[in-house]
C-alpha cells in the first residue's frame, strides 16, 4: 500500500474513533480513547500487511472501528441509568432541555392557531413594491373607508404623473347563492377588475378555461369561504354564483393570509369601475411611479386631490410595505429594542472571572460561550413564537391590534428572557456549568470595612465557591469565583466529583 493511502486510512480510522468518543461520558472519555487508540494500533499491526495493498484488511479495521460506536453508546446508556436525577438538577443539559421543551410547546400551539400559521409563511403575503393605500388625511388610521367612488373615477379618468395603477374596493354585505348551496350573506368586496393584478396577489386554481365572457363579473373566493362553503373543492373555477343581483363566475381562490388590506371579506367581486355601485365609501390602492416613490417620506406620501367641487381635499398614502412586512421584521425590531433596554434592567456583566487565580482552559471557555449562545438563541426563538401565539390567539389574520400585541409581547419576553439568561449564567459554575446552590450569608454588613459580607454559594460538584458582595465596595464590587482544589474532594465524595 502506498504511504499516502495508508496515512489517509489511519486518519480516517482515528476520525471514526474520535467521532465515537464524543458519545462517551466526559469523565470516561480519556480512558476510553486511550484503550481504543491502543487497540487500533494493535489491530492495524495484526491485520494490515506491510507495504502491500489490502483493501480487505482496511475494511476489517474499519469494521473494528465501527464497533467503537456501539461501545460508546453502551457507556452513554450506562451513565444515564447510573446518573440519579439529583445530579441533573441545575445542570446545563437540564436548562437546555427545559428551554427546548418550552420552544416545542409554543411552536405546537403556533401550529394550532390559524393566524400564526398564516403569519409565519412570508411567501403568502408578498405584494408588489411601491403600493400605497390612499386615505382621507382627516383619519388617523386606515381602517375606515374614506374615498367616494365618484372621486376615484375622476382620478382614474385623468392622466397621472405619480401613479401608474389605481384600484378601488368597497366592502358590503351581500346575499350570495350558488346552484347547490343555500343563500348566505357574505362580506363581499366590490373591487376594480385590476385589484389583484395591481396588488400582485396569487390566485389559486385559476384556469384560462374558466375565465368568464364579458357579460359576467368575476369572483375570487377567500380561503375561508372556499373551505367552509365549497368544502375546499379544487375544481371551483368556473362555478357560477349569484352575488346580490349579479351573476358571476368564480375564477379562483385567494391564498390564505394573502389579503392584508383593511376589511375582512369572504369574496372579491371584480368588476369594471363603471359597474361598481356608487353607494358608500371605499378604499383606493395605487401603485407609485418612480417619481411618486421619490416623494415618499417615512412610508407616507401627502396627496392633494384637485376636484372641481372640493379643491382642498387632502389625502395621504401609506405604503403597504408596513402591512406586508410580516412578523419577522417587527420581531427583529423588538429584539434590538430589548438589547438596548437590557442594561437598564440588569447588569450585562457575566461575572468576574479575571480575579480568579484559576485559569480556565480554552475548551472550558468555549463550552461556557456555547451554552450562553444556545440559551440566548432558544430564548429569542421562544419570544418570537410565543409573541405570535399571543398576538394571534383570537385573530385569524393580520390586524393592527395583533401587531401591537406582538410588539409588546415580543419586547417583554425578549427583555426579561435576556435578563434571566444573564442572571442564570452568572450563577453557573465556570467548570461544570451547574447552578451554584446552598446560599449562605457571610459576614456582617456593619463590618464592611473590616471584612467582606455577602452571600456564598457552592457548586454541588465541588468545583467552585461563588462570593457575591452584599454591598459592593471599591475592592469587592462584583461577584468572584473561588476554585476549590482537590483537598475538598472528600467532602463531595459520592457526588460525582471528577
Amino acid at each position: 500500500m502506498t504511504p499516502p493511502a495508508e496515512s489517509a486510512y489511519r486518519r480516517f480510522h482515528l476520525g471514526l474513533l474520535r467521532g465515537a468518543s464524543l458519545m462517551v461520558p466526559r469523565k470516561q472519555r480519556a480512558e476510553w480513547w486511550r484503550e481504543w487508540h491502543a487497540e487500533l494500533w494493535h489491530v492495524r499491526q495484526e491485520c494490515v500487511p506491510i507495504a502491500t495493498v489490502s483493501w480487505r484488511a482496511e475494511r476489517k479495521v474499519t469494521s473494528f472501528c465501527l464497533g467503537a460506536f456501539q461501545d460508546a453508546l453502551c457507556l452513554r446508556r450506562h451513565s444515564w441509568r447510573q446518573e440519579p436525577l439529583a445530579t441533573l438538577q441545575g445542570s446545563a443539559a437540564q436548562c437546555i432541555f427545559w428551554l427546548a421543551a418550552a420552544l416545542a410547546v409554543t411552536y405546537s400551539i403556533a401550529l394550532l392557531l390559524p393566524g400564526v400559521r398564516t403569519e409565519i409563511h412570508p411567501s403568502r403575503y408578498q405584494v408588489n413594491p411601491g403600493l400605497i393605500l390612499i386615505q382621507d388625511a382627516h383619519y388617523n388610521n386606515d381602517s375606515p373607508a374614506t374615498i367616494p367612488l365618484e372621486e376615484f373615477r375622476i382620478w382614474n379618468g385623468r392622466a397621472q404623473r405619480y401613479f401608474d395603477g389605481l384600484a378601488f374596493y368597497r366592502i358590503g354585505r351581500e346575499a350570495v347563492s350558488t346552484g347547490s348551496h343555500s343563500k348566505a350573506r357574505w362580506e363581499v368586496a366590490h373591487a376594480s377588475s385590476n385589484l389583484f393584478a395591481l396588488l400582485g396577489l396569487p390566485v389559486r386554481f385559476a384556469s384560462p378555461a374558466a375565465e368568464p365572457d364579458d357579460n359576467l363579473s368575476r369572483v375570487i373566493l377567500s380561503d375561508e369561504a372556499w373551505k367552509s362553503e365549497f368544502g375546499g373543492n379544487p375544481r371551483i373555477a368556473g362555478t357560477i354564483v349569484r352575488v346580490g343581483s349579479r351573476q358571476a363566475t368564480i375564477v379562483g381562490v385567494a391564498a390564505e393570509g394573502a389579503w392584508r388590506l383593511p376589511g375582512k371579506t369572504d369574496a372579491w367581486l371584480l368588476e369594471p369601475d363603471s359597474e361598481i355601485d356608487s353607494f358608500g365609501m371605499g378604499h383606493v390602492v395605487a401603485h407609485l411611479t418612480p417619481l411618486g416613490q421619490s416623494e415618499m417620506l417615512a412610508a407616507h406620501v401627502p396627496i392633494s386631490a384637485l376636484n372641481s367641487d372640493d379643491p382642498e381635499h387632502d389625502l395621504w398614502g401609506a405604503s403597504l410595505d408596513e402591512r406586508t412586512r410580516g412578523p419577522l421584521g417587527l420581531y427583529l425590531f423588538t429584539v434590538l429594542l430589548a438589547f438596548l433596554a437590557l442594561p437598564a434592567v440588569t447588569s450585562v456583566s457575566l461575572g468576574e472571572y479575571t480575579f480568579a487565580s484559576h485559569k480556565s482552559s480554552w475548551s472550558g471557555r468555549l463550552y461556557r460561550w456555547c451554552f450562553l449562545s444556545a440559551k440566548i438563541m432558544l430564548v429569542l426563538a421562544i419570544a418570537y413564537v410565543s409573541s405570535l401565539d399571543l398576538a394571534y390567539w383570537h385573530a385569524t389574520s393580520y390586524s393592527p391590534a395583533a401587531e401591537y400585541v406582538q410588539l409588546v409581547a415580543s419586547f417583554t419576553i425578549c427583555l426579561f428572557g435576556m435578563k434571566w439568561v444573564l442572571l442564570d449564567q452568572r450563577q453557573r459554575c465556570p467548570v461544570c456549568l451547574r447552578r451554584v446552590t446552598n446560599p449562605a450569608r457571610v459576614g456582617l454588613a456593619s463590618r464592611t470595612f473590616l471584612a467582606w459580607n455577602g452571600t456564598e454559594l457552592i457548586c454541588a460538584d465541588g468545583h467552585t465557591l461563588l462570593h457575591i458582595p452584599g454591598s459592593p465596595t471599591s475592592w469587592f464590587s462584583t461577584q468572584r469565583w473561588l476554585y476549590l482544589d482537590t483537598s475538598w474532594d472528600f467532602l463531595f465524595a459520592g457526588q460525582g466529583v471528577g
Partner: protein
Amino acid sequence: MALEAKLSHTTAIILQALDAGFVYGFSIMAMTGLPSGTVYPAMRRLERDQLIRSHWERQSIADAEQRPPRKYYKLTHAGKTTLEASRRRYPLLDRLIPSEEARTV
C-alpha cells in the same frame, strides 16, 4: 445467582476467553470471532457487574516493545464463580475455548 441466570451465551464465551488467557479486547475478538461492537460493550457490563476488572499495562513494558500500552482484563473471584455456573449451563464452553491449563497440557 440471579446474575448468573442473566449471563448470555456470548457473555459466557467472553468470560471463558478471559479465563483462557485472552486478556485484551482484540485477542478476545480474534479468539471468539465476535465483532468489536459486541466484545467491548460486553466487557464494560462485566466490569460494571464486577465480574472482571481491568488494569493498564506498565508504560515501560510498552515502551520497550515500541507500542502503546494495552488495557488488560482479568476475572474477579465473583467472575470465576459465575463462569463455573455458566459452564454448567453451557457445557460446550470448555470445548469451544479450552482453558489455559488444558491448552498447555
